[in-house]
Structure formats: structure tokens, C-alpha cells
């Protein structure tokens, strides 16, 4: 295949504890060498999806070229090999989020499917009319709509945990919202629209004091922060592979064993059963029970490779690097006339959202794009957040391990140029 996929050890990622060598790290991501509209690509839409390192592309290619077979089905070498790699990926995920057991890791399509899986289970067999689910005001639509659907189906109601004008969750409100009727709390670890890092430990402790399980949407936390699901004591933790340098089409539902076993199966089909007869079907134990049909085998293998890549760079090192980019971005953006930061929580990660006086975010994004700078403009699938701030949309820059201070400065310069083009 492409020459880009050839391994080159001189381009290996920097190792733990070494100086954070971002130039070298960038070479591990083939796409970062390309140009857009005649400018070097400045990719600042990492919250939408991250770029993929060669290690991931190679792992996927290796599977298809050398070890392609279905998993858990064939008593032959190739299938055993594929199964082994698939299960290795599950172990990689378990290690990455510090889960107690690999069987608590369910492979799904992404964060969205993971939430739908849990919501469908609650809707079908755990909720009754009058029960309540608490959802925070800063959720992505994928952590709102499945709960609305499950509430509609079961007759349960939804309560909203609000945030303040900085974008900080009003955790004190939880005491008022939690009751004997509450059956689940769904909250994001990091907001994709505001960048807020939520005080999960505090939230989960409070919920548990009322016997309420917590589902955490980790889609925007996994690429930026060390995550330890056991220390957090999260009942469910979900994320998408493609936002943490892995391929699209693969994601993770982590659940504590009891939390998963409470749920009825999600989809029926092959691989999720123990025995099938027309009289009675019994279901397979975890994790197979929730993985009906042929899974995204190559995707899981790619995700495993992505997580190992992140570990080789070091999650803490990435966190520190991105914190520096965020600090610089805050500085650079604050100096731009008419710019308003949306989301000013003291603890933020990865994401910075803003508006520019009299300039629509879409125009901003188009003008930046012509300079090779990719940022997101829109409501970021978080319309309640937009409503809170009274804006139809924001522009959002979001960072990854490979972004540089020079890119942040280029963003600042390009934003000044926006006014020159539009003369609003």
C-alpha cells in the first residue's frame, strides 16, 4: 500500500519522560504533512475527530493483510490469531482506563451507541412511570436524546443539572435533584462545547450516596486526561475510538460488572447467545452478551494500537502539552477585539469556544479554512449550551497532542484577518 505506511523507527513517538518533541510526534501522523488551499494544514477540530498515527494505520493494514478472519468462530489458526488480537485490544482498553476486568469492556460503534445501549436497557426493563433520570445541561445531544427516548418509552421523567455562566456545573443543585425516584445520572467528563472538566468524583460520590448509578460520557476526556474508572467509581463510562487517534466505527462501553449484568441484551444475533432453541434462548456472559454479530474487528485492533500509541507518548505529557496550548489560546484569543470566550470554567481541557462580535461563526470558519485552518463552527450538537449563552452557534478550536504553539498563533493572526475580509 502507500509508502506512508512503511515503518521508520526514526519517526517513532517520543518516549515517556523525554522532552516533548512535537515536531517528531507530528511526523507520526501522515496527514499533518498535507496542504489545504495552498497552506499547511492546521488541524484544530480534534474534538470532532483526531488524526490517525501510522501505528494505527499499520495495525489495521496488518490485520487485513496477514490475519483477517472472523473472531471466536473458527478452530483454525487464522481465526485464533484474529480473536487473540481482538481480545488484546479489549485488554488495551481495560488497561488504558484502569478497568478491573477486560470483560467489562464492550466494543460498540462509538460513544453514541454506548449511551443508546444503556438507555435502551434502562427504558426496556429498569424504569417505570414516575422514575427520574438526571442529565446535565452541558451534554452533547447523544447524552440527551437517548434518555428522552427511554423516558418516553418508560414513562420516566428527565431532570436537568444546570451550569452557571462560566460553564461550571452547579453541583450543589444535585442535593435538590436527587431523590428516591432518581434511577440514573448521565453527565459528561469534559464538555465538547465549553471544555469544562467536571468534578466527577464529587458528583459520583453524591449520586452513590442516594444509590444512583452514574453514566459518564468520556468522549472528550479520553484524549486529554488520565482516566481511572475504578477510582472515579463510574458505573458506566463511554467513549469513541476516533476521538483518541483510533479509527471511526469503534467505541467503548465500560460498565462495572453488576451494572452491565443488570441490563437486558441490546441486539440479538450471533455471538451473544449461549444456546438457542425456539423454546428458549440463553444469553452469553459478558462481554459477548452485548456484542451481537460480527464486530468491527479491524476497528478494535486499530483502537488498541491507538491507545498503545498514546501510552507511548504518555497521557500526562499530552495533558501538560495541551494545557500549555490552551493557556496560549486563551491569551491569543483574549487579545482579539470583539472576541468573547464561551465557557470560562477554571478547569478546562482541549476545547476553546468563542464568538466574534458581528461575525457569524460560519463565516469565520470559511475564512480560516482558506488559510488551511480547520475549526468547527456550529452548535456542536449541544443546543442547550448555545441557548444558555444566547448564541446560535460558536466557533471552536480543539487541540490534540500534535498541535503547536505556532498553530495557536496562526489561529490568532487568521482571526484578525476575518475582520479585514468581512468589515462587519
Amino acid at each position, binding site marked *: 500500500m502507500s509508502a506512508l505506511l512503511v515503518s521508520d523507527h526514526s519517526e517513532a513517538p517520543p518516549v515517556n519522560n523525554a522532552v516533548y518533541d512535537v515536531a517528531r510526534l507530528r511526523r507520526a501522523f501522515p496527514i499533518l504533512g498535507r496542504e489545504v488551499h495552498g497552506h499547511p494544514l492546521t488541524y484544530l477540530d480534534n474534538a470532532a475527530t483526531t488524526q490517525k498515527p501510522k501505528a494505527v494505520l499499520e495495525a489495521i493494514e496488518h490485520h487485513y493483510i496477514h490475519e483477517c478472519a472472523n473472531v471466536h468462530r473458527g478452530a483454525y489458526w487464522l481465526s485464533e490469531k484474529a480473536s487473540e488480537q481482538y481480545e488484546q485490544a479489549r485488554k488495551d482498553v481495560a488497561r488504558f482506563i484502569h478497568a478491573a476486568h477486560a470483560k467489562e469492556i464492550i466494543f460498540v460503534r462509538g460513544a453514541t451507541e454506548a449511551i443508546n445501549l444503556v438507555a435502551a436497557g434502562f427504558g426496556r426493563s429498569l424504569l417505570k412511570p414516575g422514575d427520574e433520570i438526571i442529565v446535565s445541561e452541558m451534554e452533547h445531544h447523544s447524552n440527551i436524546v437517548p434518555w428522552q427516548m427511554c423516558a418516553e418509552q418508560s414513562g420516566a421523567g428527565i431532570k436537568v443539572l444546570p451550569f452557571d455562566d462560566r460553564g461550571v456545573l452547579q453541583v450543589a443543585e444535585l442535593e435538590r435533584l436527587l431523590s428516591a425516584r432518581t434511577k440514573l445520572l448521565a453527565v459528561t467528563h469534559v464538555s465538547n462545547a465549553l471544555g469544562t472538566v467536571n468534578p466527577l468524583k464529587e458528583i459520583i460520590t453524591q449520586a452513590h450516596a442516594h444509590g444512583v448509578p452514574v453514566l459518564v460520557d468520556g468522549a472528550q476526556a479520553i484524549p486529554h486526561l488520565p482516566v481511572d474508572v475504578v477510582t472515579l467509581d463510574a458505573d458506566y463510562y463511554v467513549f469513541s475510538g476516533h476521538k483518541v487517534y483510533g479509527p471511526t466505527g469503534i467505541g467503548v462501553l465500560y460498565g462495572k460488572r453488576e451494572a452491565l449484568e443488570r441490563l437486558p441484551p441490546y441486539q440479538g444475533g450471533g455471538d451473544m447467545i449461549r444456546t438457542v432453541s425456539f423454546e428458549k434462548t440463553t444469553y452469553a456472559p459478558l462481554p459477548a452478551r452485548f456484542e451481537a454479530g460480527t464486530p468491527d474487528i479491524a476497528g478494535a485492533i486499530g483502537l488498541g494500537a491507538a491507545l498503545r500509541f498514546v501510552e507511548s507518548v504518555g497521557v500526562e505529557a499530552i495533558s501538560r502539552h495541551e494545557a500549555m496550548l490552551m493557556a496560549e489560546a486563551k491569551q491569543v484569543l483574549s487579545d482579539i477585539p470583539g472576541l468573547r470566550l464561551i465557557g470560562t470554567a477554571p478547569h478546562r481541557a482541549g476545547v476553546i469556544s468563542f464568538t466574534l462580535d458581528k461575525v*457569524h461563526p*460560519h463565516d469565520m470558519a470559511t475564512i480560516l479554512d482558506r488559510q488551511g485552518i480547520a475549526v468547527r463552527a456550529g452548535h456542536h450538537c449541544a*443546543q442547550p449550551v448555545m441557548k444558555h449563552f444566547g448564541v446560535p452557534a460558536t466557533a471552536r478550536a480543539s487541540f490534540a497532542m500534535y498541535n503547536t504553539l505556532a498553530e495557536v498563533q496562526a489561529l490568532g493572526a487568521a482571526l484578525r484577518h476575518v475582520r479585514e*475580509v468581512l468589515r462587519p
Partner: protein
Amino acid sequence: MTDIADLYQELILDHNARPRNNGTLTPCSHQAEGYNPLCGDTLTLYLQVEGDIIRDVKFVGSGCAISTASTSLMTTALKGKTLAQAESLYRAFHELVTSESPRADEALLGKLMAFAGVREFPSRVKCATLAWHTLEAALHARKEPVSTE
């Protein structure tokens, strides 16, 4: 390569900064709402049609420069036109911004030719057409707000 100035032409910048026919029109004979869920742009369009002639057009809403200028220029183009002329304009404009090789009727489109560059910016086509879809909805009295999706 297309330049950013091909999109943001002088006329478009002018109509964005100073939109014409901005405001409500009540009572009016036709009215419709448009919405672009992708960017949250909203638009309410008011028309006063007498007989076959569009006598007055006004709008309120919030949107990007392309959508605001498109609405503003559309309202100026529509005043005094017959309903049949409005339909032809709608079709000509649609072709101008969406077709690969538009046979632009420059005489018919007039100032609306300023949007010729939009074609090169696929993600912005819906911004330019929102006003026109809303016009269609108003003239054909559709009750549901139109959406670009």
C-alpha cells in the same frame, strides 16, 4: 484556486452590514419561517402579494453573512415582480449556486450574480439558499417551517 474574495464580494459585504428590508410586515398576505439546523440560522419572511404582484417583502432573522446578504438581496429583487417571475428567479438562483456548470441568466439574475462564487464553497450553499426555500414555502403556504436539512 478560488479566493475568499470570490465568496465575500463587495455587494454581499454591503448587504450583510446593512441588510435591506429588515423588519416585520403585518398584516401581510404570505409568511414563512426558515431554519438551518446546521448553523442555527433562523429567518422569518413576510410578503404582501396583491393580485399577481409582490408589492412588499420584509424579513427578520439571524444568520451568517452569506445568508443575511442572500435574504436582503432577494427581498430587493422580488419587489414588483410577478409570482411567475419570482419562480423563474428562484430556479435561476438555485442553478447559479448549485449547478456544476450553470447557464447563468445574467440578465435575469442581475445583482444576484454576486453569489456565483458560492458554488466553490459547498458547505455554504445552504446559507445562500435558505431565503429562497423560505420564499417557496411562503408562496406555497406550507405550514411547517422549512429546514435546509
